[in-house]
């Protein structure tokens, strides 16, 4: 089994960064001192990722206010709307309001990436919103249909990927949980397939992964298997392994094996068991292991403790001794 390990979402902010950003909010410290803290935090996450043997580095995406604003605040056509609950969690995002057909501003997204990623794009994993979740959760006042918006977002995200590829970035993860929580059907499903076709073309030899969580992925897998990506990620805390249908032989498989909704550490032996079972059922090619739901549902300390399981499971799966 070809095995890869990487983070799949923003990493939680450290207690020091929590203090710094709170102090900035309250006008107690200048932005420059918080910038230093962000930089320290990003380097610490990179260090952790290296220690875990991650095959791609995220630097934690600590500055992202939510999944959408890195795009919505940098592209054209958007305003930032009301506070909205993020899926079934006690965290919130500000709903993007699409006032006109969206337009990409070349270079703007890349300029907001964590500095350690910009300095070493070759090993970086870029976290992006999936076109379906993005299109469904924004407030569409653009005059375009929702179908057209998803289609257009796919094309623009594809352009973004192409641009990033030219800058040396090679790994892209699209967080698209609504593909399983509110699975599209009919013309919308076709629009999603088309959106990922744009992304797949742009990825051109790079790694593109669609990552799902927050609901049972099994019913959506026939659609997910049609998406033009290197791997389809499913969350094993929400998907019973024995319900996963077989997939196209050799297709990349992402497996969320850490559940950030609990601090209870997964049993590495159980992780190994379900990974083997899922990969066998799917007839999978390369397997990507990572946390399922976003890791920033945990505190930094708990997340750090929990991700250690990834390295232990990988070691066992690769034939090393069970620890």
């Amino acid at each position, binding site marked *: 089994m070809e095995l890869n390990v990487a983070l799949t979402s923003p990493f939680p*902010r450290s*207690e020091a960064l*929590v203090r710094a950003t709170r102090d900035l909010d309250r006008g107690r410290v200048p932005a420059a001192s918080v910038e230093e803290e962000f930089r320290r935090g990003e380097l610490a996450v990179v260090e952790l990722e290296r220690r875990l043997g991650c095959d791609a580095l995220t630097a934690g995406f600590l500055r992202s206010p939510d999944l959408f604003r890195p795009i919505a605040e940098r592209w054209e056509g958007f305003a930032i709307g009301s506070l909205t*609950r993020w899926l079934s969690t006690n965290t919130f995002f500000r709903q993007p309001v699409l006032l006109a057909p969206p337009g990409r501003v070349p270079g703007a997204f890349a300029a907001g990436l964590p500095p350690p990623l910009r300095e070493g794009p070759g090993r970086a994993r870029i976290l992006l919103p999936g076109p379906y979740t993005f299109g469904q959760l924004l*407030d569409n006042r653009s005059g375009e249909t929702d179908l057209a918006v998803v289609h257009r977002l796919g094309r623009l995200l594809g352009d973004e990927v192409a641009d990033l590829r030219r800058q040396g970035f090679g790994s892209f993860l699209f967080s698209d949980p609504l593909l399983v929580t509110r699975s599209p059907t009919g013309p919308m499903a076709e629009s999603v397939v088309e959106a990922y076709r744009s992304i797949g073309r742009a990825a051109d030899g790079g790694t593109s992964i669609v990552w799902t969580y927050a609901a049972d992925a099994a019913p959506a897998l026939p659609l997910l298997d049609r998406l033009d990506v290197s791997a389809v990620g499913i969350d094993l805390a929400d998907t019973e392994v024995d319900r996963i249908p077989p997939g196209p032989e050799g297709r990349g498989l992402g497996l969320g094996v850490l*559940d950030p909704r*609990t*601090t209870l550490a997964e049993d590495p032996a159980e992780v190994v068991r379900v990974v083997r079972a899922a990969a066998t059922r799917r007839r999978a090619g390369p397997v990507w292991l990572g946390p399922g739901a976003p890791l920033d549902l945990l505190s930094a300390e*708990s997340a750090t403790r929990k991700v250690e399981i990834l390295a232990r499971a990988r070691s066992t799966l690769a034939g090393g001794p069970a620890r």
Partner: protein
Amino acid sequence: MSGSLFPTQEIGSLARPRWQTLGTRDGGWDADAQAEFSRWDEAIGFARDLPDARNAVLAGRAAELAPEAVRDLGALFGLRFLETVGLDRVYDGEARRIEMYEYPIRRMTGFRLEGHVRSFDSKYYRKATVVDRVGLEHPLHVEEFDFVRRHAKAEPKLPLTGPYTLADWSYDEYYLARQPGWKGPAARRAAKREFVVDLARRAVRPTVLALVEHGCRTIQFDEPAAGTHPEETDLLVEGFNAATEGIDAEFLMHVCFSDYRALLPGLLEAKRCRQWAWEFANRDGDGADGYEVLRTLREYPGHPSIGLGVLDVHRDPVETPRQVAERIGRAAKYLGDPSRLWVNPDCGLRTRRLEVARAKLEAMVAGTRLARAEFENPRR
């Protein structure tokens, strides 16, 4: 109550005045805190019931006050802040609580507090892990309620965090670890049910019983997590029923930032719930109708009364009385029965500065009067 239609109430927390924050810390008061205290005391006369403490502050001897005396002043401040606006039901702005999750959890047994988790932007909260069977050494909120009861001029309504939300916002190690094998969806649900019911029976119910014994007649269960897992409405209801069954008091349930349709009809099984206090204003405006969801309730004629959120607690711009009146009118039209509406902010106003919160509440009371006049004396 102030009239037959549209009684008003608060929902929970207020921002803490700076003097209370400083006065309960080692560093103590500064000149700004002293000035803030004097300004509010002049405006709403909140400290007159505690003359010794008030005189100490006004005489520049605030540092002599023990933290508990400052907290008493804080509770009185919250109470008078809400009463002098003209609300029919009030509490103390949750002046003695850190916030709605950490405060009760710290007073229960079986939990370990973890670090901060981001809620949004640069707002964070702390979560705890349940590491042992939930327990409670002393009922919660009894002393704070006694204080409110002694000083309240309006009817008190005590808010407490419901068992479902306490479970949902906690990490589960103890109950989940009891489930064998891989912790997939079925194992997680079974563990959560056990957790919710234990919280209801072993922590919330003893609290409710003690409060009722101390004369508390109206208790609001805050269940903001309810809408996050509509498929678990049966667990929410099971927790509510286990905590309230056979207890003689008026129970409300506050839910916010949720798709209320998804909770129905399951929520109707919380038989002892007399009111659903919901957020609406946050989703109203810019072409969106936040109140339209109330039409759905016509399908459920036996539903409880509605606590109607008319103030957006996440934005500073102050609603106008006319805007509030229009929202009430619209909601009454959708609901089809104005007599079943109470009026309140969307949620606790702790997210806003006190001056903004005050202005919003004043607009709410004025707007409610307008609506009341329009309904009681309709133009022909």
